[in-house]
């Protein structure tokens, strides 16, 4: 039973954690809107969710290191905490300082992501209520 409860909630749990991660990436873009040579980053949410819900290894386990010079594959500016590969956003209108943040795109994506986060939250909440109703009768 516990297992099927987990299965029921897994999809939206994965979606929420990916949404919150993407929210952080977009916040970084907005914060660095005036930083010279900063390139806007993002990850493919649909692909990440597909991988995560397919039970695939979307999460990168840290690589074993035996020397200080080894790269440990830890989260960096190239990857998020759960190992999503960060890509560069294609430049709509370049700027002379090498910054590729387009404020309109970023804010639209940020709001879109926030609304989707709230949607997942609402659906998850309803699923929990549904299960409680089933348990309590």
């Amino acid at each position, binding site marked *: 039973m516990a297992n099927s409860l987990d299965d029921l909630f897994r999809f939206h749990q994965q979606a929420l954690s990916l949404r*919150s*991660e993407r*929210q*952080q990436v977009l916040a*970084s873009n*907005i914060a660095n809107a005036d*930083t010279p040579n900063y390139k806007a*980053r993002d990850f493919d949410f649909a692909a990440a969710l597909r991988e995560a819900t397919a039970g695939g290894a979307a999460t990168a386990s840290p690589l074993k290191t035996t020397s200080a010079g080894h790269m440990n594959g830890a989260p960096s500016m190239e990857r998020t*905490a759960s190992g999503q590969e960060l890509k560069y956003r294609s430049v709509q209108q370049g700027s002379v300082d090498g910054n590729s943040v387009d404020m309109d795109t970023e804010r639209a994506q940020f*709001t879109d992501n926030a609304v989707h986060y709230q949607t997942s939250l609402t659906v998850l909440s309803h699923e929990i209520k549904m299960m409680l109703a089933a348990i309590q009768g």
Partner: protein
Amino acid sequence: MSMFDIFKVSSSALNAQSQRLNTVASNLANADSATSATGEPYRAKQVVFSATPVDESGATGVQVAGVIDDPSPMKTVYDPRHPLADENGNVTMPNVNVVEEMVNMISASRSYQSNVEVMNTAKTLLLKTLTLGQ
């Protein structure tokens, strides 16, 4: 928790933008300061932003890498009655470009507002998450 990192990221941006606003204020205030404690005319200051990771989670914040003196040439004004005028009657005035500073000010305040909005959204999402299942 990655959502909490948004507060770190945005507050680093707020800090950086308010420091930029501070230099704008100081530049505008000293736009006519022909001398200073060192005896030299005031030189416009500019902040240099750099992207920096706030922690191990990969979140990228902003830090002020440094405040530099504006390298543009100083203004020379002909005013023979000025006490600091040289033998030709010229006074060296600060290299503050008022138009540039006003643009800088507007840009800094808009960026500040955007980051406050980002923080507010993150706060709303976190508070909503706390009510999950109620």
